[in-house]
Structures are given as C-alpha cells and as structure tokens.
C-alpha cells in the first residue's frame, strides 16, 4: 500500500485499512517519520480543512482521528527509536466547573494529528493542574469552556499561572462556544481559536 493510499484512508476514516497500510509500509522499509509526515499528518491537515469548510462534521472528524491514532500507535516504537522530535508539547483541558469534552477532544485529536505531543488533562480541571502541566514541560496550555459561567475559570487559571511564576514559560490558547478573541486578550491569553483545525495552525505559530 502506498503512502497516498494511507493518506486517503485516514481522510475517509477507514481504520482497518490504515492499520494494514501502515504495517505494510513499515515492512517495505519506508521510514516511520515519512509515513507520519507524508500520510498521517497530511491527511489530518486535509480533514481539518474539510471541517473548516463545512464539508465534513463532527462524526467524520472523529472517524478520521481514530484511524490516524491507530496508525500513529503502530509508528510510535519506530519513531522513538529514530529520535524524531515531536512538533511540541501541549496540555489541554476543560476548565474547572465544566464537563463538556467533545470540543476539547477534537482539539486534542487534531493536535496529535499535526504531530504534537498532547497531554489530555480531562474535564473539570482545576488551575493547579494546568500549572503542574507547565512544570512538567508543556510549552502550550489549551483551555476549553462551554458556558460563560465556567469560562470565568480561564481567568483563574491565568492568575494561577502568574502566581506560580510559570506564565512566562508557556503560551496559552483558549476556545469553546462562548469564547472569543476579545476574551483571550482580556484575560491575557496568547490566542483564541474558533475550531479544532484552526487550533493546530495557531499552536504551531505560538511555538515557532
């Protein structure tokens, strides 16, 4: 199976075909980082574009992400052996008081699909846990919220990052239904992204 076929199968969310394709590519001796960059990451970038353009929706994105993750899992041992650097380390969570997680999950999947190392902090994440993630080496923090009342926890987290003296070591990006660019500026976050696909571009810019 060619890289082009793996690419197409990820876009279409064909998990079994991606698994078979990655296996056979590895057996043919294609380097893991080429499979990652030319098939999986390219495919997820296309999925992101289709989502942004309204061509595909949440279920199709979940399908593609699952297929990508299946392929990525097979590549991991080989990638570790070849000392390939991830695009960066990101920690993402839904803020305290909030249990909405599909939006956050999509962002996690898209970032993984763009080659980032992502720590999923889960939902109802207190400020201290975000601080800890920075202390553990996260270069970017992502926060998600569904409601204006829980969005207020983003400000609390910003304050906790400052209080812990780690604000300078990390970039912060926020998102979710009520969140806007203006709110990001207001609480001193570095960026806002309207959807999971835009989020990958923004995070890349933040670390560059």
């Amino acid at each position, binding site marked *: 199976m060619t890289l082009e076929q793996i690419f197409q199968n990820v876009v279409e969310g064909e998990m079994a075909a991606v698994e078979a394709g990655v296996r056979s590519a590895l057996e043919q001796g294609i380097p893991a980082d080429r499979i990652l960059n030319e098939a999986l990451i390219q495919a997820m970038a296309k999925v992101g574009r289709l989502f*942004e353009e309204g061509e595909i929706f949440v279920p199709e994105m979940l399908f593609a992400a699952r297929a990508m993750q299946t392929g990525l899992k097979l590549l991991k041992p080989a990638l570790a052996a070849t000392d390939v650097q991830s695009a960066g380390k990101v920690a993402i969570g839904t803020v*305290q008081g909030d*249990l909405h997680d599909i939006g956050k999950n999509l962002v996690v999947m898209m970032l993984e699909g763009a080659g980032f190392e992502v720590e999923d902090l889960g939902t109802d994440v207190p400020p201290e846990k975000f601080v800890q993630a920075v202390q553990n080496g996260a270069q970017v923090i992502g926060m998600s919220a569904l409601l204006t009342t829980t969005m*207020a*926890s983003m400000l609390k987290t910003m304050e906790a990052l400052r209080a812990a003296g780690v604000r300078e070591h990390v970039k912060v990006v926020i998102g979710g*239904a*009520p969140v806007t660019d203006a709110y990001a500026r207001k609480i001193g976050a570095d960026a806002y992204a309207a959807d999971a696909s835009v989020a990958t571009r923004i995070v890349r810019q933040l670390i560059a």
Partner: protein
Amino acid sequence: MIHNPPTPDFARLEKVLRRQGQPDRLPFVELFADNPIMAAVIGEPIPVIPNAIGVPIDYAAQEYAFDRILRFWLEAGYDYITVPCQLVFLLNRQEIKDTAGEQSKGNRAWVNEATGVIANWDDFERYRWPTVADLDFHSLEYVAKRLPEGMKIIFMGPGGQLENMMWLMGMMNLSFALREDPALVEAVATKVGEMLVGIWSAVAERPGIGAMWLGDDMGFKSGPLISPKYLRQYVFPWQKKLVEITHAHHLPFLLHSCGNLQTIMDELIDGVGIDAKHSFEDVILPVAEAKARWGQRVAILGGLDVDTLTRSTEDEVRAYTRKVIEACAPGGGWALGTGNSVANYIPVRNYLAMLDEGRQYQGYV
C-alpha cells in the same frame, strides 16, 4: 419594573408567531428561566420538584411550585407559561459544583458525551423504552385550570429528536454508530421519534395549549453537529411529523435549536415547516441579521446574547437591548428575550433591565 397589573394576551404573541404584523406592544419570549432567576423575580423560593417518568410525584408540592412559576411568567410580563414535559429518557448524567456564585443551583448537571446508556444492541434491547401511557400530565392539567385570563400554555418537549439520540447514545458513540451500525441508529431514531409523536398527539389537543415548542439543539459554533445528510435521514422527518400534528390542531410550532444552522435554515423553514426559530448567539449570527435574512419566512424569537447579558453592566445591557429592539421589532414577527434561556449565571438585574427596555419600547403605539 413590572407591568402593574399585568395584561397577558396570548393573541399578542400569536401575532408574532404567525407573522401577522405588529402587535399592540412588544411581546416577551423565553423557553425557560432557571429556578433561582424565577425565585428572585417573584421574591420567593420555588422548590425544584423532580418530574421524571416512572418517579412518583408529590402533586401537592408540584402544585405549590407551579403556583409560583405561573406568578413568575405573569408578573415578568409574558403572555404564556411554558410547561415542560416530564423527563422521558433515562440518561447518563454527572453533576459537579455550579460556578454561578450567588445564583448557584448547588450542582450543575452534565450529560456524558462519550458514552450514553445505549452503546450496542444489547443495551438497546435491555433499555426500558417508555410509552406515552407512562407519562403524567398533572402539571399541564393543573396549570390549565389556573391560567390567568389571556394566558396560554406553551408545551415544551422533552428534548428533541437529535438531542435524545445524542444523549441516549453519547455524541461519540452516536458518531461511530452512524457509520458502523446504521441499523442501531435507525432503531434509536425510531424509538425516540415514535415517543415524541405520541407525546405531541397527547398534548396538542389538551385545554389551554397555545403553541408547541420543540427544543432540539442541532448545531455548534461552526455548523450542524452532524451532516445534513444524516439530519435528513434521522431527524427532519420526525420533526416534520411533529409540525404536522401541531398544525392539525391549528397551533404554531416553535423550534429552539442552538448553534450555527445557517446551512439548514431553508430546510427547516420549507421542509420541516417550523413557524418560529429560537436560539441565537452573537458570535455565530446576531439575531438582527437572522431577522433580516429569514424574518419574511419565519418568526424570529429572542436572541439577546447570553454571554453579553452575563458579562455586561446594567447600562450596557440597556443600550444593547435598545439596539437589538430597534433592529428587530419593526414590522413585527419578533419577540424580546435571551438567545437561549435565562441561565442562573445571568445577573437578575441585567435580565430585568432587558425586560424593562422592552416595556419602554414605543415603536408599536
């Protein structure tokens, strides 16, 4: 602040719902207000009475609560009261501490999005599917008897076709099943749809009913949650049946559906046949633009952005409300209200300021 005495007249709102020109004054519209808001407006606590299918109901307590809820709708200036259906489907819920400060409800309940109660055929077979015979209509009966002159009931469904499918299966599970087990999705859609149709038929003919309101969130920030192709397959046909039942009883059909639905509005108006659309957010499409775009074909309801109502000062809310009224009220076909509901984290004074600006509107005299 409050009309004294209140002069409810359902015909006023109905004129908006049927787009028959300008009413005598600007009607107010709301799907619901959270309990602490209603309590603050009438200045008395209102007990929360659990009302789910199969759970024994304390009728005296329910009547006590509805006396107060009715007072809220009347005194705040509405021409109707919404009476919600019982909770029909058992869901996978979790609760955590509410962040709404002094108007807190204690805990906030969330539906688990990853897994619902139905993940596979075994779950489907085991699930105790409710029937219309299991429903209790005491609250509807009681409120109908207590309705003040001029007021009517708008019945509020137990969540919609897509919502109940999403909540029963979990959004993630539903997503995977759409591709991997369409027969299961079809079976769940049919169970949900048949139940909604049963409820609609049982309620639309009851005394005191002035309109039927379906809440069915189909969108999010960037578009519909699932593709229009699937909506056409599993959702629109059932919604259309509900519209037909509603119209057979000569009642207007209101749709509350959140999120960015611009690409499916035509189908909702012409295909499903809704009479009014509710739920708007400024970050998606300000209600004034929605009125300009679809106001000739469907009534547009509410739309004052919940985030703005929550985070603004009272003066800012007044200015914002005036601006929206000036844009939406001319010609009728619009009623004043929030873009979603009076959530408990909206400061009560901001909510009352919005209503007060509505009362002061002189455009219809």
